[in-house]
């Protein structure tokens, strides 16, 4: 039997916590199948062995926060046929994009003994602000199920199943009772994209918005309804300013509550 040439996969890290690329190692049961079907050509968290590009699939984790990052992402793009950004950092700038709302020089002078050693950009930005991205996987961290689905979809040439509707749809498909209605806000579910299988609501917690804004998110309607229930501006600001703070709909909404 003819030995098929396996597609080459590379994993790249930019500014991030490594949690999303860990999801690949976290595949456990499926990991051997992945290794059997895909040649892991560059994945430093798993192996020292690095094969030369070009790569059929690149998974890019992290945001662009340094001048070096901003150059390196172009090299990654050039070496990749299909580039998938993984996680809130890569798709929206991540939690480190909180700096985008302040003066980064001030942080640097407060935190580091020798600020002149630090070379950093004023803003933490998503990969798609710098290069063309073929597919985005949301989440903080990403969903293992969605990652396997996307890899599987690429292998057979089908469409991935990553819905862009609200977390509410997943709650309802699982029969989870809406906490917003049954015990009160906050829950970011109605404006957040599905993908986590309603993880927090299934533990009676409101959604934190890890998967970022859903398609056509009406954040101002939800925020003004909550304000009517007595929620304060700083609370509304914090709700929209977390892992996906720099995703435009959440950014605009948090800015609307800035005093």
């Amino acid at each position: 039997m003819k030995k098929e040439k396996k597609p080459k996969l590379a994993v790249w890290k930019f500014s991030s916590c490594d949690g999303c690329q860990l999801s690949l190692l976290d595949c456990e049961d499926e990991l051997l199948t992945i290794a059997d079907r895909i040649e892991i050509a560059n994945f430093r968290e798993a192996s020292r062995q690095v094969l030369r590009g070009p790569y059929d699939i690149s998974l890019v984790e992290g945001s662009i926060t340094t001048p070096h990052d901003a150059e390196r992402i172009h090299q990654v793009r050039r070496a990749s046929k299909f580039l998938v950004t993984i996680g809130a950092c890569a798709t929206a700038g991540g939690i480190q994009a909180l700096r985008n709302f302040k003066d980064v020089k001030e942080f640097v002078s407060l935190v580091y003994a020798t600020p002149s050693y630090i070379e950093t950009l004023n803003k933490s930005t998503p990969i798609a602000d710098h290069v063309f991205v073929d597919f985005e996987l949301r989440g903080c961290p990403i969903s293992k199920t969605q990652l396997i689905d996307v890899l599987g979809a690429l292998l057979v040439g089908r469409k991935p199943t990553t819905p862009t509707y609200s977390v509410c749809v997943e709650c309802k498909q699982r029969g989870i009772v809406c906490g917003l209605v049954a015990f009160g806000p906050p829950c970011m579910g109605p404006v957040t994209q599905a993908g986590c299988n309603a993880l927090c609501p299934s533990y009676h917690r409101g959604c934190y918005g890890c998967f970022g804004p859903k398609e056509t998110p009406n954040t101002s309607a939800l925020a003004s309804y909550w304000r009517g229930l007595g929620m304060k501006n700083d609370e509304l600001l914090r709700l929209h300013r977390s892992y996906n703070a720099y995703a435009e709909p959440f950014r605009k909404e948090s800015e609307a509550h800035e005093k």
Partner: protein
Amino acid sequence: MSTTTPLRIELSAIDGIISSLRQQHYTVVGPTVRGASIVLDEISSTSDLPVGWMCEQAPARYRLIKLPVDSLFAHTVGPHSWKQYLFPPILRLFSANRNDGEIRIGDGLPGSDVPGAGDAVRPYAFLGVRSCDLHAILIQDKIFGGGPYQDAYYRRVREQTWIIAVNCTLASATCFCASTKTGPKASSGYDLALTEVITEQDHYFIVEVGTERGLKLLEGLNHRPANESETARAAELVEGTASQMARSLETENIREVLYQSADHTRWEAVAKRCLTCANCTMVCPTCFCATVEDTVDLTGMRAERLRKWDSCFNMDFSYIHGGSVRSSVKARYRHWLTHKLASWIDQFGTLGCVGCGRCITWCPVGIDITEEYRAIRDTTLTNLVPSSTEEVENGNA
């Protein structure tokens, strides 16, 4: 059958009904308290029912309240509806396995939580079906079980299902079944219909029998014909429920009003509030839309096709070449309300709304279907042009 005189059973007979159905291998499903709400789940005795609980409902608000009496059915409809058993949120339509170059089609996946379309179905007995929800089931019977294209899974489950209805003796603030003529008293489609009566000295049920098997179930349980005052007391309670309803939907000319209101300014106003989160359609007991998802595992050896609840509020729902047909919030809300209250009549011969009020309670920002329709009607009715079915352009599904 329903012409027989009402019977009286005692509180203890409810346990008799449950255990007798369970002995006949029915999975008895009924209301039960879970966390902060009353959901539907398998029950094995009256102690699983919401004993002494009622619910307080308002737009975007649901709270449980403890009562000083041991009522079984003082609550109204909750976050779940019976459609989750007949039209499961996720159903495996089929799976395909590749083996030695051969593809084998099946639908079962042992050990999976997701039911398969061809699985042997568990026979259900629904206990505590309210009139609004019973009407919703009768509507879904037409959708899935009527016409030339029938849903085999739905029909198989539905044909075996027992329905023990409960007439409502309290209304929630979001209820409006009296105006849609779908309650609060169950009129047909049940095996048995119960009305709970609690007085200072007494706690009993008036039973109306709808089927032979319903009557047979009561054999062996202590029952006697209800006397006139008992029947009158039950009727009074149910009539009282109707008069408690503060909300209403004016159904006269509803189709014509909506067909002539496509450009109404109210749609823009509601679009500013609507989150397009799809909660209203998911909790609606008549909404029946689904999408189909195909997945293939990493080895390429196993594929499956799942049917999942979908909503006309999702962008992909109306996605065709070039994009979503209804990309604006206004278009999606208008589509939903107009289908529910107007084109549904052309499609299935009834309103798509049974007045259960779930879409009002479970909307995270409390959008009220009765209020939205009233706003449109109040400004459209004066200019209403009588229309015939032929003139109706938009028979959308």
